[in-house]
């Protein structure tokens, strides 16, 4: 637990220090107060992101305070309001809901505090500086494109999908990305056309619980809700396997759920027959599996360190160099990358927290 307790001390003492030295806070080479309103910490990715934000800040000698909304919109609003009343210089936000924090962001901006959105999508109405993504859709699509190459042309891709939580926009983006990539490659469409098809495909899945794309020769036979965890991924996969014993593909909205689902495949000796693709995270356990040449084939890179780095780069431009916060594009992506057996060696770091 060192990472957390460290940040506790530093942020608590930091806010006191900042309180005392407020008048001196502007100008060059000075220290800045940064707030990070994180949506949840119940998942290694978000933990790693919070740590990365903390570390990048400390590298620069700034003080960073992290608040966790625990997936509650109400708490998120409270957190944002807290930062505004504490007079932060800049706020990083990872919002729960794309529309959820608009008034709070607007209030912060009105108080002269720029807000940079991290990771999750936010409505353009909010008026954040920019949203720094590891591009969920892009990652999904890259993985989907790769998945398409793992099957013969005439072979039907018979899949099931493990989804996170109902109504989660990030999950939906990842899911659609996967569909888009597979359809794009297999049906020979342009990216733009493929997105349209993916959207239709996803709606079909929502309405009927199954979906089939003829041109791509691609079907999703069932969707299990596994709340982002391995523990729920396992039973969901077990049930899906009973109903669909002949699948050859498992898609997932993150790595954890697939890692759980893998146990179900192992139990019925289907690891040979089924290949697994996660739209997201590239967490180290998954990378290890990819490296070992198992049927876990690919994961989208969602590197928290890269997101934090890009976020601070922009923050510095605004706070130190005085760049106009409204001059940024809506989205700033870290590059979408599919981690596959081909490139896993470069990207795998067994000592990462995530």
């Amino acid at each position, binding site marked *: 637990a060192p990472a957390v307790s460290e940040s506790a001390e530093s942020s608590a003492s930091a806010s006191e220090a900042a309180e005392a030295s407020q008048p001196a806070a502007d100008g060059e080479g000075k220290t800045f107060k940064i707030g990070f309103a994180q949506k949840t910490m119940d998942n290694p990715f978000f933990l790693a992101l919070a740590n990365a934000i903390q570390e990048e800040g400390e590298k620069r000698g700034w003080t960073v305070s992290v608040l966790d909304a625990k997936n509650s919109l109400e708490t998120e609003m409270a957190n944002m309001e807290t930062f505004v009343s504490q007079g932060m210089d800049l706020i990083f936000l990872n919002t729960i*809901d794309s*529309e959820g924090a608009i008034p709070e962001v607007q209030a912060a901006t009105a108080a002269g505090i720029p807000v940079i959105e991290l990771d999750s999508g936010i409505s353009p109405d909010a008026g954040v500086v920019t949203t720094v993504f590891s591009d969920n859709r892009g990652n999904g699509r890259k993985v989907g494109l790769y998945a398409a190459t793992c099957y013969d042309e005439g072979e039907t891709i018979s899949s099931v999908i493990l989804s996170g939580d109902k109504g989660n926009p990030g999950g939906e983006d990842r899911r659609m990305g996967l569909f888009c990539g597979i359809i794009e490659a297999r049906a020979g469409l342009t990216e733009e056309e493929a997105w349209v098809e993916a959207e239709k495909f996803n709606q079909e899945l929502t309405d009927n619980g199954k979906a089939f794309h003829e041109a791509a020769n691609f079907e999703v036979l069932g969707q299990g809700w596994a709340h982002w965890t391995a523990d729920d991924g396992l039973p969901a996969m077990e049930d899906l396997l009973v109903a669909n014993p002949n699948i050859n593909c498992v898609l997932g909205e993150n790595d954890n759920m697939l890692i759980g689902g893998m146990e179900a495949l192992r139990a019925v000796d289907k690891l040979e027959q089924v290949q697994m693709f996660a739209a997201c995270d590239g967490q180290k356990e998954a990378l290890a599996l990819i490296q070992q040449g198992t049927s876990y084939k690919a994961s989208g890179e969602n590197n928290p360190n890269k997101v934090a780095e890009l976020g601070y780069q922009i923050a510095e431009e605004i706070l130190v160099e005085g760049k106009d916060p409204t001059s940024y594009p809506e989205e700033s992506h870290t590059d979408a990358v599919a981690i596959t057996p081909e490139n896993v060696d470069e990207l795998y770091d067994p000592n990462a927290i995530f």
Partner: protein
Amino acid sequence: MKKATFFLKKYSTYIIFLVAVLICIAISPDFFTPTNIVNIGRQYAGLIIVSMGMLFVILTGGIDLSVGSIVALGSVITATCLVAGMSLGVAMMIALLCGILCGIITGVLVSYAKMAPFIASMAMMTMARGVAFVISNGSPIPTPEGSIIWLGTGAVGVIPTLVIIAVAVVVAFWFMQNYTSFGRIVIAIGSNETAVRLAGIRVKLYKTGVYVISGLCCALAGILLCSRTAIGSPVVGEGMELDAIAACVIGGASLSGGEGSAVKAVIGVLILALIGNIMNLLAVPSYPQDIIKGIIIVASVLLQTLTSSNKKEA
């Protein structure tokens, strides 16, 4: 001396709350600022309203787990109606009616079909959430520009509109509990249902009534939540039932019915609010926060039971 202990016992909930406020003021300079107070008010207006409905259900000895889902349903329906071009008034009407409908279903299952309130309201929790998902197709629904946000961000002087609405609801419940036969009979039902039935009172009607009122409160809270963010979301209000029940119980309500007070339930909400707020202000790291929160809840309730333990050992 005697009088002092009596005073202490009667007002222990309030005293604990005051002490908590003083502690917060002492440990965080940000706490007692107008912005922060207004923030707390805005943030917890919804929970206060939901807790009022919950209190009446609890008074009859029931429980309503469906509150969070009905809040979500209310929020989604309001947004959908606004998107369809209806006026805010009509949209609110429809949302409130849906809340009432949910309440009627739960109430009828409990009173007439004699289902355990826990199960009936749990089924309603699942169903209302499902309906909210179906209506919204699983995604948040942004409302048309300017259609509702003024309600959530508005204020009369410094007092946010949301707070005014919440206070009005609390006053209404306080009045209902203390000055109407409905309120007293609700308590009597929780205290001894058979006695009330044998007094020739239509117990089933009253019991259905409290769930309807709870549904109505939830829908209202849903509208207010929607007005804060200007979006209707099918995922809001998850876990709200626990907070609402906890607020009532911290405010002295008994889950077996017959005991509880509207004003004290509000204090219960505020104690929960304080705990959340102060930890954020102090930037307590997220994981130990849970532990500290648990300890504070235990401590505050313990202090209350200790100061008010005049109960006979019977």
